[in-house]
């Protein structure tokens, strides 16, 4: 039995005292597991991911990493975040730094690793995702797909225990979606622990060990992808999946 890496109990979050965006969420992810979170927009899935990295303040509940409760003081938080990789929809590369500098920044600054070793690893990883020749360029000279692959590398080089991917293909042109998802699929094969929020249902089906369906701030279903996409238990999940079916029809 693989060990549990991240564990969340009774996580509740609301904005400005309004109704709860996330309501007593219980969740855990094991080493090497890939969990995909789906749900209609506004269901709280992105907020959920952001809470896990404390980019949002949670109202109540607990988050445990490797069985230990997280200290959220300004001093301790960076230590935790170092172990949790996060990739954003809008890439968020640092525009004033080259690709290589973007990737090397955190290992040097946060982990104080050896520069030559970091550089070698950065180049290796960039080559792996197919952007080796872009290493001395600035982010704005890259396509969206290339930027997102660099952003993934920037997280990977920190050797995170979990990688959080927040709708990483949502801002991309269709032809670039594939090159990014390919990278994620390979990571999954290698045993990277990942929590993924996405709207790409085919991708979810292919990559997930487990699918979580979030609706109105609550986990409605949680099961292997074959079951969720094959025979969802709840009416709400069926309706949600049908909207995709319909959209797919309309596209033609």
């Amino acid at each position, binding site marked *: 039995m693989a060990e549990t890496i991240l564990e969340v109990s009774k996580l509740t979050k609301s904005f400005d005292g309004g109704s709860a965006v996330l309501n007593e969420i219980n969740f855990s992810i094991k080493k090497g597991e890939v969990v995909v979170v789906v749900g209609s927009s506004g269901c709280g899935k992105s907020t959920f991911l952001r809470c896990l990295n404390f980019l949002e303040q949670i109202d109540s509940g607990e988050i445990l990493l490797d069985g230990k409760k997280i200290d959220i003081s300004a*001093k301790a938080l960076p230590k935790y975040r170092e172990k949790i990789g*996060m990739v*954003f929809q809008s890439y968020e590369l640092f*525009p*004033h730094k080259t690709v290589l500098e973007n990737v090397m920044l955190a290992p040097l600054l946060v982990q104080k690793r050896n520069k030559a070793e970091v550089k070698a690893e950065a180049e290796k990883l960039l080559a792996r995702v197919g952007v080796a020749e872009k290493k001395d360029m600035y982010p704005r000279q890259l396509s969206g797909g290339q930027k997102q692959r660099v952003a993934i590398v920037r997280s990977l080089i*920190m050797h995170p225990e979990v990688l959080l991917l927040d709708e990483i293909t949502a801002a991309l042109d269709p032809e670039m979606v594939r090159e990014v998802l390919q990278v994620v699929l390979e990571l999954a094969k290698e045993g990277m622990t990942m929590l993924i929020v996405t709207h790409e249902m085919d991708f979810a089906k292919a990559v997930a060990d487990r699918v979580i369906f979030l609706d109105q701030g609550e986990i409605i279903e949680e099961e292997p992808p074959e079951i969720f996409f094959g025979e969802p238990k709840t009416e709400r999940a069926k309706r949600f999946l049908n909207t995709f079916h319909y959209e797919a029809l309309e596209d033609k």
Partner: protein
Amino acid sequence: MDLEFISSHIPMYVEAAGLTVRIAIYGIIGALIVGLICSLIKELKLPVLKEIVQIYIELSRNTPLLIQLFFLYFGLPKLGIVLSSKACATAGLIFLGGSYMAEGFRTGIDSVPQIQRESAYSLGLTREQTFFRIILPQAVATSVPVFCANMIFLIKETSVFSAVALADLMYVTKDLIGLYYNTDEALLMLVIAYLIILLPISLVTSWLERRVRYAGFGN
């Protein structure tokens, strides 16, 4: 126009202008440092200090330099703090300029999207590291035109230094008018001196403003 009068008094003006420029440079550098410290305190939301910074900025922005100088030069000695004319002028300029530079930094910092911070935080960078490595370098590019405008503003403000008995351009001019009544010559030299100091900076600023607007990393 008495050309001989002019040529014989040029050294006086050069010296006075040198003094003005020197204090302006100290003042601008000091103001940038104060402005940077203020924005760091605001960025890190340090309790108490952040309120002090806010009060300082409001006091500095809503009072004339001349009055600030009078207080420093004539008021403070009564508390046992005696400053020389030069020290007073420099301190006054830093007190005034610090808030303007802080606003300049603020403009730039606000132009950097919040998610850039989050992206740095999620890589494990501390708030200080994020400020200096990620936010500030991007902010400064946007702030440069504001800094330049502030620079011109501060150099112009140095003209009040004669009020605290600093032998600057205004002081020399007033002296010459009072002593010899060579009003035209004295005023002409005054205007030329300020033109020589400020025109190049003003032109460079206009050029920079146009350039910075289109600047970006990797262009």
